[in-house]
C-alpha cells in the first residue's frame, strides 16, 4: 500500500521589471515596463526568452517525460498572471507545454494573486480581485478550477488562513518553520488556527532548500548531492509519516541551478529512485489534503514567509523606502479603479508585484554582501528611484486624463 508521498509544488513567476524610468519620462512617456534597450537587464522580453530556454522549456519537457514514464508522478504548480501574460506574448509554446502537463490530470494548478502582490497586507478588496482574476485566467487558459491557495512568497498568517477558509479553498500552503512548529513535524497535514474546513500543508524547508539553494554550492559540506544521499535523507525524514512537502521556485531547475550542475538528471533519477520503493508515491496538493486528515492545529499569528533566515517580510517591507513606495502605490487604489482606464489599472497592478519591493531591500547591501540577493538594478536606491518615478507618472495620468487626485510632487 502506497502511504508515503512527496508533494512537489513549484512556483512559476516572472515580474514586469521597471526600466530605468527617470523623472524626465514621468508625465511624458507612460511606458514603464518595456525597455527599448534589447540588451538591458531590465528588458523583460530578453529575460523571459533567456529563462524560457534555460528553464521553462527543458523542465517542462522533463516533467512531461516523468509523467509519461511514472504513473505515480504528480506535481502542483502556481503560475502567476504576470508570467502567463509574458509567456503568451513572447513564448506561447511554453504555455502550450504547461497545458499538456495539466491535461494529463496529474498536474494541479494552485491559486494565488494574479500579480504576485502583497495586496493582502494593504487592501483586502484589491487582494480578492487579484485572486479572482487569477482563477479566471487559469480557467481560461487551462480549463481547470483551483482549490488550494498560496500567497505571495508563501507569506502566511492565521488571518490569511481564515480568509481562505471562508473563501472556500480546501487547502493552503505555508513554510514549515521550526520556531512555529516546535516539536511538530512538517510532514503531516494540519488545520490552521480558527478555521473550519481548510487544511494546511507545510514546506519541508530542509529538503526543499537542499535542492533550491544548496544543490550546486561547492562550499556545502554535502556537495556533490547524489541521488543516493538525497533519497536516504527523504526516506529518513518521512519515516512513518505521510508527507514530504517539497516547495520551491520552478526556476530552481535550469535558472537558479544551471543545467551543467546536473540538476535535471539528478531530479529525473531521484523521481525514479523514490518510486522504486513500493510504499512511495507523489501527491498533488489536493490529493495530499484529501488523503490525510489534519493531525492538529497550527497557529501563526505573525506573518511567516519562505524567505531568508528570518522567514519574515523584511526583504519586501523592511525599510522606509519599501514602506513609502507601497504606501504611495496603494493610496491610489480608489482613484485608479474609479478611472475605469484598463491600461492604467493594469500598469498600477503590475507595480504591485512584490519583486519591485524586493529590489529595494537594503538589509544585505550595507554589509557589503551585495551579491547575496538578486536584482537587475545597480542598487536598491536605483530600484526605488525608477519605481517612484513610475508612480509619479501614474498620478499624472490620473490627474491629466481623468481629473482625479493631485500630483504631490
Amino acid at each position: 500500500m502506497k502511504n508515503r508521498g512527496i508533494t512537489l509544488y513549484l512556483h512559476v513567476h516572472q515580474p514586469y521589471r521597471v526600466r530605468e524610468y527617470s523623472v524626465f519620462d514621468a508625465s511624458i512617456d507612460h511606458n514603464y515596463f518595456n525597455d527599448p534597450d534589447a540588451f538591458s537587464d531590465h528588458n523583460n522580453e530578453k529575460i523571459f526568452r533567456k529563462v524560457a530556454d534555460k528553464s521553462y522549456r527543458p523542465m517542462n519537457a522533463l516533467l512531461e517525460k516523468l509523467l509519461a514514464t511514472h504513473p505515480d508522478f504528480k506535481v502542483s504548480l502556481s503560475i502567476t498572471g504576470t508570467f502567463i501574460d509574458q509567456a503568451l506574448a513572447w513564448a506561447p509554446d511554453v504555455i502550450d507545454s504547461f497545458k499538456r502537463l495539466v491535461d494529463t490530470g496529474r498536474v494541479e494548478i494552485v491559486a494565488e494573486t494574479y500579480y504576485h502582490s502583497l495586496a493582502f497586507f494593504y487592501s483586502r478588496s484589491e487582494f480578492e480581485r487579484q485572486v479572482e482574476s487569477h482563477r479566471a485566467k487559469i480557467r481560461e487558459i487551462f480549463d481547470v478550477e483551483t482549490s488550494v491557495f498560496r500567497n505571495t512568497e508563501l507569506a502566511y498568517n492565521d488571518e490569511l488562513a481564515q480568509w481562505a477558509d471562508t473563501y472556500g479553498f480546501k487547502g493552503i500552503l505555508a513554510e514549515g518553520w521550526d520556531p512555529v512548529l516546535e516539536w511538530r513535524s512538517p510532514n503531516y497535514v494540519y488545520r490552521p488556527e480558527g478555521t473550519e474546513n481548510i487544511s494546511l500543508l507545510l514546506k519541508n524547508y530542509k529538503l526543499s532548500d537542499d535542492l533550491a539553494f544548496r544543490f550546486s554550492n561547492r562550499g556545502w559540506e554535502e556537495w556533490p548531492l547524489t541521488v543516493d544521499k538525497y533519497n536516504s535523507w527523504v526516506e529518513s525524514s518521512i519515516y512513518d509519516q505521510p508527507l514530504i512537502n517539497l516547495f520551491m521556485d520552478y526556476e530552481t531547475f535550469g535558472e537558479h541551478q544551471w543545467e551543467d550542475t546536473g540538476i535535471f538528471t539528478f531530479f529525473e533519477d531521484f523521481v525514479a529512485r523514490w518510486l522504486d520503493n513500493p510504499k512511495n508515491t507523489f501527491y498533488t496538493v489536493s490529493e495530499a489534503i484529501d488523503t490525510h486528515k489534519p493531525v492538529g492545529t497550527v497557529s501563526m499569528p505573525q506573518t511567516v514567509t519562505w524567505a531568508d533566515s528570518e522567514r519574515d517580510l523584511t526583504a519586501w517591507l523592511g525599510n522606509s523606502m519599501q514602506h513609502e513606495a507601497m504606501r504611495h502605490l496603494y493610496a491610489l487604489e480608489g482613484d485608479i479603479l474609479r478611472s475605469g482606464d484598463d491600461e492604467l489599472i493594469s500598469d498600477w497592478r503590475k507595480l504591485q508585484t512584490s519583486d519591485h519591493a524586493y529590489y529595494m531591500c537594503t538589509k544585505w547591501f550595507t554589509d557589503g554582501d551585495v551579491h547575496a540577493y538578486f536584482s537587475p538594478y545597480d542598487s536598491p536606491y536605483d530600484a526605488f528611484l525608477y519605481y517612484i518615478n513610475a508612480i509619479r507618472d501614474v498620478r499624472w495620468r490620473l490627474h491629466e486624463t481623468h481629473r482625479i487626485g493631485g500630483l504631490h510632487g
Partner: protein
Amino acid sequence: MLGWELPPHNSGGLGVACFHLSKALAMQGTSIDFVVPYAAEHSAIDFMTIHHATNVSPLHKFGMGAYDSKFLSSTIDDKETGELHTIRDIQRRYSKFVETLVQKNDFDAIHAHDWLTIEAGVRAKQLTHKPLIVHVHATEFDRAGGHAGNPLVHEIEYHGLIMADRIIAVSAITKQIIVEKYGIPADKVEVVHNAIDPQSFDVSYEYDDRTYRYLEGLKTEGYTIVSAVTRLTVQKGLVQLIRAFAKAVDKYDRFALLLAGDGEQRDELIRLAAEYGISDKVFFTGFVRGKQWRDAYSVSDVFVLSSISEPFGLTALEAAHHNTALIVTNQSGVGEVLNSIFRYDFWDVDRLADQLVGIATSPALKESLRKNVSHEYARISWNDIARQCASLYSNVKKPAGVMA
C-alpha cells in the same frame, strides 16, 4: 617620505592623505623623515621629522599646489632672496635637498607621493640603492580632466613609474590608468584605498546653523541643499553638475546648490548658472577652511562628487561623516569602497538630475542613503592602510625606518 604638502599648508586631499598615512605608520613603529618643499611651522606634527627643502612660503599660496600642472610656467617671488622661481626650480632644489639628506641619513625605503616628488625619489634610489615606492594619488590624466595634459609631466610620471620598485594606486581606477596609459605591468601596482579618520575631526565641533543662515532658511521652507566641496577646476566635472542641477530645478524647484571652494573655473561657472537662470539657487563660497568648511558639509542634504576623473575623492567620505547622502561619478575611486550611494557617469546629466529629484522628493530615500552610508564610510582605517604600506616596505626589501 617625499611629499609636497601637509596640513595646514595644503590646498587639498594629498596633504591630508600624507598626514594620516604618516601618522598611522609612525604609531605602528615606523620612523619617518618627511620632506616638504616649503618652510612653515607644522606645530601639530610631532610623530615624524619634517624637513624643509627650501625657504619659500607654502606653495599653495601661489597656486603651486599639487593639483595643477598649469603652474609649470608660472613663477613665484621669493621674498627673502628676491629670486624668481618656477615650479621646476623648486623641484630642482627639492631634489638637491633630498640628495644630501639621503646620503647623510640611514633608512630602508623611499616613499614618494605623486609626480612632484618622483624625480627626487628616483635620484635617492640611484644614490642609495634603496627601494622606491611611488604612491599615485593622481596622474596627469586625472588633473587634465580628460584632456592630454602636460607632456613634460607625463614624461616625469612615466620615468618614475618605470623606476619604482612598487607602485601604490589609491583606487582600481587609478591602477587601470597606470597600467593602460603608462604601460606598467599590473602586478607591480597595488591598490590601497584612502581612508578617513573620524577621530581626526575636532570632537568639540558643533554645527553652527548661522554660518550658512540663508541656506538654513531655505531648508525650513522645504529646500534640499546639494553641495560640492571642491576646487573649481575642469577635473571636477562642475559644468556637468550645474547643467544637471538646472535640469533638476526644472522638475522640482526647491533646490539650492552650494559650491564650496575656489579655482580657475569659478567665473565660468557663475556665468553658466546665470545662463540657465538659476543664479539665485547657486551659492559660491570661495575657499573654505575650518568651521566654514565643516559647516558646508553639515548644511548639506546631498553631496555630489562630480569628477570627470577622480583617483579617490576623500571629500565624499568627509561628507558621509557629516551625515549627507552621496552621489558619486563612476569615474571616482571612492565609489569602490561604498555601496549605499547613487552613481552616475559624469556626462550623464539626466541621470544625476533624476537622482537629485528623487532624493529631494522622497524623505525615505534621503534618510536611507544617509543612514546606510554612515555605516560604510569608516570601514577602512588609516591603520589598515599603514599596515599594508609597512608590509610593502618589508617585502620590497628589509623592514623598518622609512626615508627619505
